[in-house]
């Protein structure tokens, strides 16, 4: 029952959010015109910096908590609230995703929640996929792609929701399959919320590898992190505990994001005045997020993840069909 409330609450927040921000965005468009050019009053510049910092703090926190890059949350906020042009917002967010990943991973790896071997193995799939996707970027029909991607996010969230109804834990313990056994991908971590050491195996490794490849292709095509696919891939397909999936996704995201960030910087889509506060806010937010995750239950994380994934999917479809 609780999960309905979470989803409902998210819709409510999202609705309020748009209601308020669409009004503000008109105001901020005005503000924007003043700030974006030289010689703006100091107070306005400071206000802008503070806004950017706050947005980044929140999305860094959520990004670390859920194993998403945080870009999917950050970019629309910057566009609507601060009136930043979308490619500048994407440039800032892709650098911020590297920050989320590195800051969160430094905590998760130290606390031994991240499955580094699994992460390194799947990294091969995501980077290969990203290279494939980026090569075909010019030919892609973006609206169709967004719609399909949105549908797959909704599918993933439905499967996870179904699992939540039937299980009492965020995962089912399964033994390693042959490939995971060969690469010794199984692991264990100390669950702070349960107060016990938890061991797990990795099943259907090749399937997860395949899904990660697709996630890489999508992230190359659309210029997004792809954490929304990696976490369900590990948790649902390979039956890895939710916290480990989140931590490992965070570990991997930095690499793909770093590759895209280089391209963004080289093309000059990286505005220092916007990117610096956004990255600094993200660093702090994701550091806090990574410390909080340990104390939360995997089930709770999974519920929040389901709700956020559903929203992201709907938003992706909406932008795909041109709403």
């Amino acid at each position, binding site marked *: 029952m609780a999960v309905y409330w979470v989803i409902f609450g998210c819709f409510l927040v999202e609705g309020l959010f748009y209601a308020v921000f669409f009004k503000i965005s008109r105001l901020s468009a005005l503000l924007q015109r003043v700030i974006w050019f030289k010689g703006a009053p100091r107070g306005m510049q400071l206000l802008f910096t503070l806004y950017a910092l706050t947005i980044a703090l929140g999305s860094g926190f959520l990004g670390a908590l859920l194993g998403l890059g945080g870009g999917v949350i950050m970019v629309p906020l910057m566009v609507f609230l601060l009136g930043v042009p979308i490619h500048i917002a994407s440039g800032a967010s892709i*650098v911020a995703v590297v*920050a989320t990943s590195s800051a969160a991973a430094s905590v998760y790896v*130290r606390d031994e929640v991240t499955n580094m071997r699994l992460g390194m193995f799947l990294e091969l799939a995501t980077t290969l996929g990203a290279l494939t996707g980026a090569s075909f970027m010019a030919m892609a029909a973006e609206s169709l792609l967004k719609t399909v991607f949105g549908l797959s996010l909704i599918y993933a969230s439905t499967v996870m929701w179904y699992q939540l109804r039937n299980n009492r834990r965020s995962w089912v313990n399964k033994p390693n399959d042959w490939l995971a056994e060969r690469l010794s991908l199984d692991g264990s971590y100390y669950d702070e919320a349960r107060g016990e050491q938890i061991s797990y195996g990795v099943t259907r490794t090749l399937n997860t590898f395949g899904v990660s490849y697709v996630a890489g292709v999508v992230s190359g095509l659309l210029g997004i992190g792809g954490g929304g696919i990696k976490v369900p891939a590990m948790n649902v397909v390979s039956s890895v505990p939710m916290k480990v999936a989140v931590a490992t996704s965070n570990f991997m995201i930095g*690499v793909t994001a*770093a590759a895209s960030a280089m391209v963004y*910087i080289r*093309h000059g889509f990286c505005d220092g005045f916007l990117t610096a506060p956004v990255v*600094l806010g993200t660093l702090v937010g994701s550091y806090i997020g990574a410390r909080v995750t340990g104390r939360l239950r995997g089930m709770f994380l999974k519920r929040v993840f389901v709700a956020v994934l559903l929203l992201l999917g709907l938003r992706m479809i909406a932008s795909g069909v041109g709403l």
Partner: protein
Amino acid sequence: MDRVRFLELLVSRLLRTGVMVSGLLMVMGLGLLWATGDASCPSGVLSVGWVLFGDPFLEPSHVLFLGFFILIGTPLLRIVASATAHLVERDLVFALLNVSVLLILVVSFVLGVG
């Protein structure tokens, strides 16, 4: 110390150091930009040379971009470090995995796609 733990601490500290150094540079760069009132943040296509060496070296906006550059380099450095660690431990499969990921990244950067 056991070998797995060694790699974990190595990676964790590497990431944290990279994040801290770049964060510090960004704070400094932003502060300098504010103090000097110099709003000439670079725009347009940037050369790798500018990001590395600046023109002039360590002007406010260059400090800022040096911060971005170190941040972006951190995950790549992490792969280099773990490749080396796996190689030392003779875990050839994972050393190869890390190296090929690095190669793919280099290829995608050289091709300039993405």
